[in-house]
């Protein structure tokens, strides 16, 4: 069975090549970290299904900020609040902005939130990049602060759980926390982040198991099949993603780009 990542990589390869040649857009200067790639174990492994192979990729060092998103909508007015059809903007698109091109009281350096998957994907596309896949995002999120795999660092799971569960409902400026092994900031302590393939871990193509996996996140079964039962932050992330649809947005959900 070809994994989603394989299909995805094939689909995007032409665009990635193009991106390296013509990198344009509002945040062309965005700093990205190079990640060699490797294996991402599924949260709920199913027999006969191995780890997802993640090829080398690059990912934004910081989440996309309000200021960066403002620059984007100024050059792409179709993504300004009021111009976006409900089907792409959802109910709460850019809630808190004073107008289509005015951040109002929002901190320009805070991550942009209240953006739908469609808006996030359009932003990254305009920049010549894309949203990271769930596997890519998790690969970076699993990195420690000083080593490739966080769970090998003493107290890592506890630290990440605390960052995830104890954060402020209104996110502050990006980049204030500690960078991880790849030099990437704010994977845990600031906002949830969109991934390209939301809910990928629940769509295996084997419909018999899809429902069961989802139920493991919403019912008493809990961690019955999970590899690392103490990685509570991962449970929180997967549970959050399991409830998402593309037109959803909230004040605690932002994104960053990859390519």
């Amino acid at each position, binding site marked *: 069975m070809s994994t989603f990542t394989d299909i995805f990589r094939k689909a995007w390869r032409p665009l990635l090549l193009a991106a390296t040649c013509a990198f344009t857009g509002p945040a062309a200067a965005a700093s990205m970290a190079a990640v060699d790639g490797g294996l991402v174990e599924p949260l709920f492994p199913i027999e006969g299904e191995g780890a997802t192979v993640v090829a080398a990729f690059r990912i934004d060092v910081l989440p996309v900020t309000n200021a960066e998103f403002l620059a984007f909508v100024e050059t792409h007015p179709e993504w300004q609040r009021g111009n976006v059809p409900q089907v792409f903007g959802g109910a709460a698109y850019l809630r808190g902005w004073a107008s289509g091109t005015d951040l109002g009281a929002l901190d320009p350096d805070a991550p942009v939130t209240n953006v739908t998957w469609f808006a996030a994907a359009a932003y990254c596309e305009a920049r010549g990049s894309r949203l990271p896949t769930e596997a890519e995002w998790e690969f970076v999120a699993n990195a420690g602060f000083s080593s490739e795999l966080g769970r090998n660092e003493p107290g890592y799971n506890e630290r990440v759980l605390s960052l995830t569960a104890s954060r402020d409902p209104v996110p502050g400026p990006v980049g204030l926390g500690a960078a991880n092994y790849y030099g990437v900031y704010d994977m845990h302590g600031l906002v949830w982040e969109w991934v390209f393939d939301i809910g990928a871990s629940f769509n295996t193509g084997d419909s018999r198991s899809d429902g069961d996996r989802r139920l493991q996140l*919403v019912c*008493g079964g809990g961690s019955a099949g999970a590899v690392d039962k103490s990685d*509570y932050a991962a449970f929180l992330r997967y549970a959050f993603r399991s409830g998402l649809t593309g037109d959803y947005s909230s004040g605690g959900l932002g994104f960053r780009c990859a390519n």
Partner: protein
Amino acid sequence: MRDERGNVHIGAIYGLATLFVALAVGVALFGSRVDAATATEPTHAAHGATSTADHAHELTVNMPTTRKAFLDDPEDLVAVAELPLIKGVLGYAPNVAPPVDRDYRAHVEIELEVTEEVMRLADGVEYRFWTFGGSVPGPMIRVRQGDFVTFTLQNHPSSLMPHNIDLHAVTGQGGGAEATLISPGQQATFSFTALQAGVYIYHCATAPVGMHIANGMYGLIVVEPKEGYAPVDKEFYVVQGDFYTKGNFGERGLQDFDMQRAIDEDAAYVVFNGSVGSLVGENAIFAETGDTVRIFFGNGGPNLTSSFHVIGEIFDNVYVEAGGLVNHDVQTTLVPAGGATVVEFKTDVPGTYNLVDHAIFRAFNKGAVGQLVVTGDHDHVVFTERTDIRPYVPADGQ
């Protein structure tokens, strides 16, 4: 069966009676729900034959035979569309939701909002609670057996986490867990019929479930039997929960959830109604002498079983595990995590009665204490207070 003199052997009578009783109890226990209501008759027929049958009669009194099952009555066949629509009234602990004041089924609408907020866990100690209705425990929901309940769960936009609800009173997938999974800023609705009477825990069931419960996401839904609970003078709503903080008991400041401590079941706090002192001093609950008191007592857990006891009282009635079996004259009753009970007693003597988890270090070192203050006339036959105190010198003079 008869001996050579034609007398029936006493053992044969006992044997027959025992057989009758066993059959009757067997039908009551294992027969279909509809059959169970009629199964009392053969048991009553056996009554009076022997003392063994008397014993069986006692057993049937305590069995849920007085309770009617759903679909027992013509009212149960009324279509949902024809049921009167009622907005459910919630009860915030220690206050109960108002008793059901009707003898017919209804379509009850319930709305419950999920919030995440920093609140007091103890003096000087704050905790980031995840709540149903902004309180721990979540508000009491109260319906009548057979009611059709349309339930809407709302996740406040300021929440960070997705949430849902598993109501133990619901027969169906996850108790509503999958139907109600919602991200911040969403609401979801589903409906169910309250098939069985009892007092049930509800709780959040989003991964990691233990963490959602440990952060305070539980409460009680009371499904009153069709005939209702007997009227009493005072009703209260108390739910026990255990909390796992980075700091030890009493360590000041905003305390984070401690995952390892939760896994080790090493509670820093064991409290009634969400915080140390929630039922103490000016927050105590009150009654007068002669009052009949009913406490709906739940245990949200996530880990610990409660040994619920009221110091200086004896429970007249305990609805064992909040079901149809009623026990009498009970000192301490076990309430499992994710379970509940109903206790009833009459107050005879004024004083302060401490509600405790009689796993007693939890009471005196972790917070599991509440107070029922009873005022009124003294009954010096039931209790004299101290009548004498003097030095005690043993007979040997040492």
